[in-house]
């Protein structure tokens, strides 16, 4: 099929207004948040329903058309950039909230629904979600789940996406079949439980970076808004002490003392570590106990009381977007991933060595937030495009290489413009199994080719 026949084929599925090959449109999708170079798709389609996604995949298979999939577009490791051109699916049109089940405490949404939109509707019913990233209003549920993403919000208690919050999914296989997982797929019962009959097929999609199927719906566990919430901030001058605090907060596994615990340090001000803490309680006595306990832990580890408004501002703008985001330049996240709870200072030391001592780059943050028995660490560099691009890429490459050598579990892999070059050859038999699964589900290798699975 030539390009115009493919265009017409897609028009027949999604309609004229939902497919484009206009270069103005194509360029507007050519980058994510990372400094990765532009990757321009040949066409973009905006499916509005699962059946349209299914029809697109059958069509793409027949024509061996590469298909890339994008949610809110906020990946920072080139997770959807169309490496081989082809078709890019913009899932944002699938933004509906399908059901909020107040009895089972679940919400079912289309994958293009944003956390911002979902939380707005949940709050009208006295509910909220478990945990999320800090990506602002455009981050979608689908994007978060498909990468098993996570940010500081709620993560100390509930972990990253997929750990507690995903109960069931609907997705379209690369060959076009529609699959439903979780209890909702069994015998007509509601989607209240992820596990049940056979292995966890929901987990197949979580963290798959879109390579094994296209997520179209998700059922999430939600929770009532706690009776009490508060915010604290402590400053520390030693990451070993911060590590001890994180260790103590997450040790009561299942009854973590904070809802969120985040810490960061600027390369321009080494030795001043600011922490942000979000406390919660469904019972005021329990809340007061946690608050007292948290203070005791921080003070024991030489934390100095800081300005709690910093934490309040940070945690209450999760979905609305942090203020002053790019005041020092465009962000590039690097060295992002998960590490065991007792290894935090080692990673900070390497960051200091590379960013502060070797490159003397003043606009960089090293940060970490806890999840149950671990840390997610990250660095973000603020830079000016295009002048500082080379410098930050050099820093970034060095950090990614060192962190992976040290054993970080990368937050996202992406493609050749992401973290893939750094982990190549290090994943052993697990990666071989992933390849086999990919081959079985996507025999023509058309879905997200060269992303995650090579």
């Amino acid at each position, binding site marked *: 099929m030539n390009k115009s026949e493919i265009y017409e084929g897609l028009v027949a599925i999604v309609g004229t*207004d*939902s497919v*484009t090959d*206009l*270069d*103005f*449109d194509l*360029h*507007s*999708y*050519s*980058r*994510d*948040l990372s400094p990765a170079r*532009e990757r321009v798709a040949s066409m*973009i389609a*905006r499916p509005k329903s699962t059946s349209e996604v299914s029809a697109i995949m059958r069509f793409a298979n027949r024509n061996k058309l590469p298909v890339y999939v994008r949610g*809110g*577009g*906020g990946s920072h490791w080139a997770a959807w950039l169309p490496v081989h051109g082809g078709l890019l699916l*913009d899932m*944002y*049109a699938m*933004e509906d909230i399908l059901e909020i089940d107040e009895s089972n405490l679940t919400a079912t949404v289309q994958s293009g*629904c*944003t956390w*911002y*939109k979902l939380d*707005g509707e949940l709050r009208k019913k006295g509910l909220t979600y478990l945990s999320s990233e800090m*990506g*602002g*209003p*455009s*981050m979608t549920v689908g994007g978060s789940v498909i990468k098993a993403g996570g940010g500081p919000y709620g993560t100390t208690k509930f972990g990253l996406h997929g750990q507690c919050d995903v109960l069931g999914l609907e997705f379209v296989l690369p060959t076009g079949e529609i699959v439903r997982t979780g209890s909702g797929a069994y015998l007509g019962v509601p989607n209240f439980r992820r596990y049940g009959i056979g292995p966890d097929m929901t987990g197949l999609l979580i963290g798959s970076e879109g390579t094994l199927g296209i997520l179209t719906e998700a059922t999430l566990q939600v929770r009532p808004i706690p009776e009490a919430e508060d915010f604290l901030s402590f400053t520390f001058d030693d990451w070993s002490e911060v590590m001890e605090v994180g260790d103590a907060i997450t040790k009561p596994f299942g009854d973590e003392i904070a809802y969120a615990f985040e810490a960061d340090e600027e390369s321009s001000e080494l030795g001043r570590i600011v922490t942000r803490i979000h406390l919660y309680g469904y019972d005021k006595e329990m809340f007061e106990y946690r608050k007292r306990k948290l203070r005791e832990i921080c003070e024991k580890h030489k934390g100095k009381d800081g300005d709690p408004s910093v934490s309040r501002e940070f945690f209450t703008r999760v*979905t609305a*977007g*942090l*203020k*002053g*985001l*790019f*005041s020092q*330049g*465009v*962000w590039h996240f690097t060295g992002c991933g998960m590490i065991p709870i007792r290894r935090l200072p080692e990673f900070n030391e390497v960051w200091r060595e590379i960013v502060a001592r070797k490159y003397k780059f003043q606009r960089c943050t090293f940060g970490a937030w806890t999840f149950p028995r671990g840390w997610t660490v990250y660095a973000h560099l603020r830079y*000016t*495009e*295009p002048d500082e691009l080379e410098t930050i890429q050099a820093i970034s490459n060095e950090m990614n290489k060192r962190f992976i050598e040290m054993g970080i579990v990368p937050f996202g892999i992406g493609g050749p413009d992401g973290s893939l070059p750094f982990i190549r050859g290090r994943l052993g038999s697990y990666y071989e199994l992933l390849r086999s699964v990919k081959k079985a589900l996507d025999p023509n290798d058309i879905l997200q080719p060269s992303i995650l699975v090579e």
Partner: protein
Amino acid sequence: MSRLSSHVNEIMKCGRCGYCLGGYMAETCPARYVIGFESGAARGRMLAARAMLEGRLEYSPKLTERIYTCFLCGACKTKCEDAARIDTVSIIRAMKTEVFNRGINIPNEVEKLGIAVETRHNIFASSPEKRMAWIAPDIHVDETAELLYFPGCVTSLELPEIAKSTARILNKTHTGFSILGMNEWCCGNPLLSTGQYELAREVARHNIEEIKRRKIKNVLVSCPGCYKTLVVEYSRLLGLNELPFKVTHTSQLFRRLSEQGKISFRGVPEEVLTYHDPCELGRLSGIYEEPRKLIRQIPGIRLVEMDRNRENAWCCGGGGGVKIVYPNQASRVALVRLKEAMSSGATGIVTACPTCKWNLKENVEASGAGLKVIDLSELVYSSLIS
């Protein structure tokens, strides 16, 4: 700053966070809502602008349509205040200018608009005398007054009831006013919105000279587009450090007259009204409270807010020249706002912009809302103690 290349550093500041997209399709960007693709929103447009600057875009009728389908409502600019503080409105306007200056695939309606302003000095190509048709026999214009009333094209020629109400309020409060009459030219806002920078400069020069010639120190406008253009753009267009006169929007003057006790309201039949913030008065000029305070002062009227108000208000669809070039797109955006107004429980919408009134009113029937749409000046005048 009409050239796109002069904005290159601003364009590079975009970190692609997507704040400008908002949290759902019809939340922030009306252009994205009607186009559907990312190219409607500022994030996509910044990438496309880079491609334009680097010569990677093919100029085609579709490209023109994409670029011209921006309402210049400033919602993205407001959202970007939290991120990179990019003046997205100026950049998108420069993109339109870039297309216009190339002279390829310019929409007919844009060309007609330019010709109308060039030859008849108004956007409707009406005969210049018609600018004064709103002056009813009972309205007194004082040619020696220091206050100049500048109604603008839409008020004078399409919605004369706004000009009449304004003039009658001024007469009633013994606030003398003069007019430029046939010498009032389009303020230039529709030209800037459609990329016609040079012609906008010409009309700015004319209007300023006319105002200066009459030694006017205070100019009163009904139209937020005129307001913003006179206050902000004229200095930019003509390289002035300062305007030689002060500009006031009718909502500001009416509020001042009320504070001075020159305006008093009688009780009116009970009614629930909502206020629609015009983009160029609210987000782009920072005037939110004066209209609300006035409405709340009127006994019998209960003001309710739409879910999205003040800096978060959804555009009426009338701005950015889109109503002129792509009226169907303007209607789609208006329908969203009318639905929202209906959900607020109001039976009517008050606005303080002739173009907002024009576009919302034209779409009321299609919305099935049965709402009345009135300008603040009409509401104020009809509620005055006689």
